[in-house]
């Protein structure tokens, strides 16, 4: 019989012989690794969920031009501030974003007024592909526009009795554009009162080629906080203001950080307790098996060979505990996410590796002391039962 196979058989027999203690150790290891796994899966799933929620809220950073401010007054009198309209240079923003290495979804906007019939309409020039990616919850009746087409916000459409298929002739400072309405859009926000057309078309109509009034960025917050990213971008764009859309981003980040910290602390406490429990149980086992260890040494087992058998037992317990821990942990994670977060946790196979790692680490770490005893045990004294 192959030596490794025999070792495995020996280890399994030894564990089966001490059913009660084996079950106890397995339960401790499975509990610790299942908790670590469950908390890991919940944390991972929540992070994804929060990221998804943040996506739903849309942009979390905005770039706007620095307004030209002019204080009006004389001596002690102050009559207020006059602000000149200001614009961002599209090329400069594009270059800066490329240089910053910031990974973010973005949309460029030029907001302006076009004259239609007897009224000025607020128009937003956008890239519709970016809009669809950044604001997936916008609801559209009709189609997204092609060249020479526009979409109208639902409130504006109701007010002006516009519907898909109608045409509009809009007069800008530089050009007049004739557009066909391809759809009515509804976001539930201020966009419902706007008219949307392709950014280059509006830039031409207003005579503002290559100029923007707003850039929206959706940065997925990673290890670095959104604030730090905003500050870094601000340094690269001194002619603009980089602002956080604070509420959403900060709340999500803060909540996630607190949940992670709580999970980490609970896991740490459980792992320490489990490690101590394993160490205590393994020490008792080694004490009880002193004669067996002495016999093995008397038969010619070197200290390392005998220790390998006991390490094998610890590793086997760790392996089985880790497997059970992964299964239980996944189930616990499902339960937690369903009952607490009203969402379902993902099935994440690679967490099995983490569960096994935690369980093996605990089993082997808890066995260090007992293994040293095995290593040092004197065969003559242990066979005498001393």
């Amino acid at each position: 019989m192959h030596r490794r196979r025999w070792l495995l058989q020996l280890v399994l027999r030894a564990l089966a012989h001490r059913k009660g203690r084996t079950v106890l150790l397995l339960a401790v290891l499975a509990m610790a690794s299942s908790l670590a796994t469950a908390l890991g899966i919940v944390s991972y799933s929540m992070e994804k969920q929060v990221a998804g929620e943040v996506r739903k809220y849309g942009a979390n950073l905005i770039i706007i031009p620095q307004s030209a401010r002019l204080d009006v007054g004389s001596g002690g009198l102050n009559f207020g501030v006059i602000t000149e309209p200001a614009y961002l240079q599209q090329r400069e923003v594009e270059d800066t974003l490329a240089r910053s290495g910031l990974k973010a979804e973005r949309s460029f906007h030029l907001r302006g007024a076009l004259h239609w019939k007897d009224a000025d309409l607020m128009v937003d020039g956008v890239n519709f592909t970016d809009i669809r990616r950044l604001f997936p919850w916008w609801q559209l009746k009709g189609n997204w526009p092609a060249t020479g087409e526009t979409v109208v916000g639902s409130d504006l459409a109701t007010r002006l009795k516009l519907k898909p298929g109608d045409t509009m002739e809009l007069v800008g400072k530089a050009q007049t554009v004739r557009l066909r309405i391809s759809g009515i859009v509804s976001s539930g926000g201020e966009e419902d009162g706007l008219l949307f057309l392709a950014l280059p078309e509006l830039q031409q109509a207003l005579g503002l080629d290559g100029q923007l009034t707003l850039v929206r960025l959706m940065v997925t917050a990673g290890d670095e906080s959104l604030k730090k990213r905003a500050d870094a971008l601000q340094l690269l764009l001194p002619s603009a203001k980089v602002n956080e859309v604070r509420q959403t981003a900060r709340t999500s980040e803060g909540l996630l950080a607190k949940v992670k910290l709580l999970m980490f602390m609970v896991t740490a406490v459980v792992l320490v307790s489990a490690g101590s429990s394993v160490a205590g149980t393994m020490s008792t086992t080694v004490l009880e098996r002193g004669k067996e260890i002495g016999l093995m040494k008397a038969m010619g087992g070197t200290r390392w060979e005998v220790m390998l058998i006991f390490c094998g037992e610890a590793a086997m317990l760790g392996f089985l505990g880790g497997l059970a821990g992964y299964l239980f942990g996944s189930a616990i994670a499902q339960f937690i996410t369903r009952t607490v977060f009203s969402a379902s946790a993902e099935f994440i196979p690679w967490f099995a590796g983490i569960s096994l790692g935690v369980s093996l680490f605990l089993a082997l770490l808890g066995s260090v002391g007992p293994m040293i005893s095995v290593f040092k045990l004197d065969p003559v004294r242990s066979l005498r039962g001393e």
Partner: protein
Amino acid sequence: MVSAIIETSGLTRNYGDICALKPIDLIVPEGEWLSVMGHSGSGKSTLMNLVGGLDRPSNGSLRVGGEDLLALSEDGLARFRREFVGIIFQQHHLVPYLTAVENVMLAQYFHSVPDEAEARSALERVGLGHRLKNRPGELSGGEQQRVCIARAIINSPKLLLGDEPTGNLDHKSTVMVMELLKELRAEERFTVIMVTHNQEVAAWGDRTIYLDDGVLVREERMKS
């Protein structure tokens, strides 16, 4: 002339202030069956443990099978034991969760490679062919001692050590075990050192040495 398998000179073992074995000079020829007799605490087991490489002397020289045991490291001594020595204990010391055949295979594992066929054959030689799959708890004292003998001889040792191997057996089982050892010795030609305080058991040997308070007080050659 038969060469010596064991040679000791001034062999001493102290445990703190207690001198368990006072300087002993002993030569055991290869193939001899040496019985070691004495009262409890006379140093019999200490001598056996030293000769078997289970313990280290405090003083003196000790050569077994040409090997200077004092020069061997801890793991070197373990390798010496697995290659050279088979031990039969009074308490049997069988692993309780292994079957008879697996207990024998455990000795093979530490020596080289476990071979179930060989282990079965060893048990059949000691008359336990029908008890291969029984665990120690399911065997009588005599049967357990025979498993212990099979385990001790499985690696063909040059030196068989018996630490009161019949101490826990009744007369019938004692005779059975001693006859078995005699047969095996005739076949395998190993040297036997048997610690006992039973005169009848000692009489199975070629020579008996008597220890008293750690001192070799006399020796007696048995009539064949």
